[in-house]
């Protein structure tokens, strides 16, 4: 069973096809990066995977369950940051992580230790007592990720997790993602940062025009290979249109 799976997804917003037969899956212990241009359909796919949007066609599964009706058992093992994180701007960093832990189903007795560990892991100790609304964009992003992983999820979905981070923050998140996967979690990351995903992902899937247009082997010259794949997809599409 694939921990995260999208199959034959189609979804339109008005006249625009956001997803056009997109299929993708992530196995336990695997980090898959979804890369693509703006409007490629990445975030729409992630919204479906987190149950926030019902696809017009196709299916999605998280730990074997439909994300739209995810039961408590699967939900306890699932974490995500797609758009806004599970963060209340009026709570402190510690309060946010603790409340996230409670909502994720962590036993009350275990909440302080779990929260302290993830705050430390993401180097947020210095801001533990600061209200979330006072944090810099980078620290706020790390807090969002902390809230998504405080329960040690078996399946994790992150949309642009390093977009606001400084080099140290990027490194911390990369190490976190890699260690979660090494511990058996399935991680799906959407990103524009090709060099970054090359360092952390086991597979890199190129999404273009709402479709999976192939994979890139993580490694050097990602940017050139990415654009070559996109151009190839465009050429194929215009060719088939002709």
């Amino acid at each position, binding site marked *: 069973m694939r921990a995260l799976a999208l199959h034959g997804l189609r979804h339109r917003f008005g006249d625009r096809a956001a997803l056009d037969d997109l299929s993708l899956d992530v196995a336990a212990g695997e980090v898959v990066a979804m890369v693509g241009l703006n409007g490629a359909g990445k975030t729409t796919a992630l*919204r479906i995977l*987190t*149950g*926030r*949007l*019902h696809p017009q066609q196709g299916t999605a599964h*998280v730990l074997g369950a439909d*994300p*739209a009706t*995810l039961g*408590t058992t699967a*939900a*306890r093992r*699932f974490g*995500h*940051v*797609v*758009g*806004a*994180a*599970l*963060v*209340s701007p*009026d*709570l402190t960093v510690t*309060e946010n992580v603790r*409340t996230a832990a*409670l*909502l*994720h*189903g962590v*036993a*009350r007795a275990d909440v302080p230790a779990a929260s302290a560990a993830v705050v430390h892991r993401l180097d947020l100790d210095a801001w533990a007592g600061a*209200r979330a609304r006072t944090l810099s964009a980078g620290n706020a992003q790390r807090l969002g990720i902390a809230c998504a992983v405080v*329960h040690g999820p078996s399946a994790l979905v992150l949309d642009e997790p390093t977009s606001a981070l400084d080099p140290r923050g990027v490194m911390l998140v990369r190490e976190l993602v890699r260690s979660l996967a090494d511990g058996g979690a399935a991680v799906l990351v959407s990103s524009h940062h090709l060099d970054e995903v090359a360092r952390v992902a086991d597979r890199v899937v190129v999404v273009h025009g709402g479709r999976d247009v192939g994979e890139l082997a993580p490694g050097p010259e990602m940017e050139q290979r990415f654009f070559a794949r996109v151009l190839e997809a465009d050429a194929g599409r215009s060719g088939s249109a002709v």
Partner: protein
Amino acid sequence: MTGLGTALRVEALAWRRSTVQRIATPLVLVLLPLASVGTTALARSGAVDGAGAAKLADYAHGPLAVTHLTVAGQVLAVGLLMAAGFAYAAVFGQPLADGRAGSLFGLATQRSTIAQARCLVVLGWAAGCALAAVSLTVVASTAVVTVGGETFTDEAWATAGQALLVGLLAACLAPPFAAVATATRSPLATVGTLIGVVALTQVVVLVGGGAWFPYAVPSLWTGMGGVQVAASVTPAALGLTAAVAPAAIAVVVRQWRRLTDV
């Protein structure tokens, strides 16, 4: 623990820390006693004439403490509805408008349970505000009547009890705005609807249909429409008004269970 208890704990903390609560609570607690004692003092000062005096005529005579508490009930009837309505607009409309509501999907604690807890926390806060505001008004009124050589009578205590019930009824009328905020996904549209409902209530009262209209019942019961209309408010009408809260919360829970495209 992943049920309502967890959600209540989390939502209560978030509400306690929220800017909206930090502004609204002192406003309600300070303005109500001030408005009650101040309006009565103004009505009895003789400093107001013309249309103003006519509006304040009901407060210009009668036992002082009873008048204070009558005004308190009348202010609470609208003021607490507005405060709790704003609160629901903020806690339900804003997260849907800025996308934070999406983070409540896929949690061990169901989003509908979180919505239920959010409704209950604001309802509890509004009820607490009603109790505290009436208590403070009693304290202020006692101080004023003591200085004036009067006593705080049993009738005044009964009026205080009615003011508290009016406040609780006003709180019960606010949860539908959580449903409005969820449906419109906009705090501004919710506030607009709230103001519209208050205006509609005035129209319903003017055309004489208030005693059955839940949003008019608390005000009418305090005598805003006159003694005769107040007497026409039946226990059934009060019960119907109180029933608005559980009915609206049930609607909100259903809305959040079925919520999509967030």
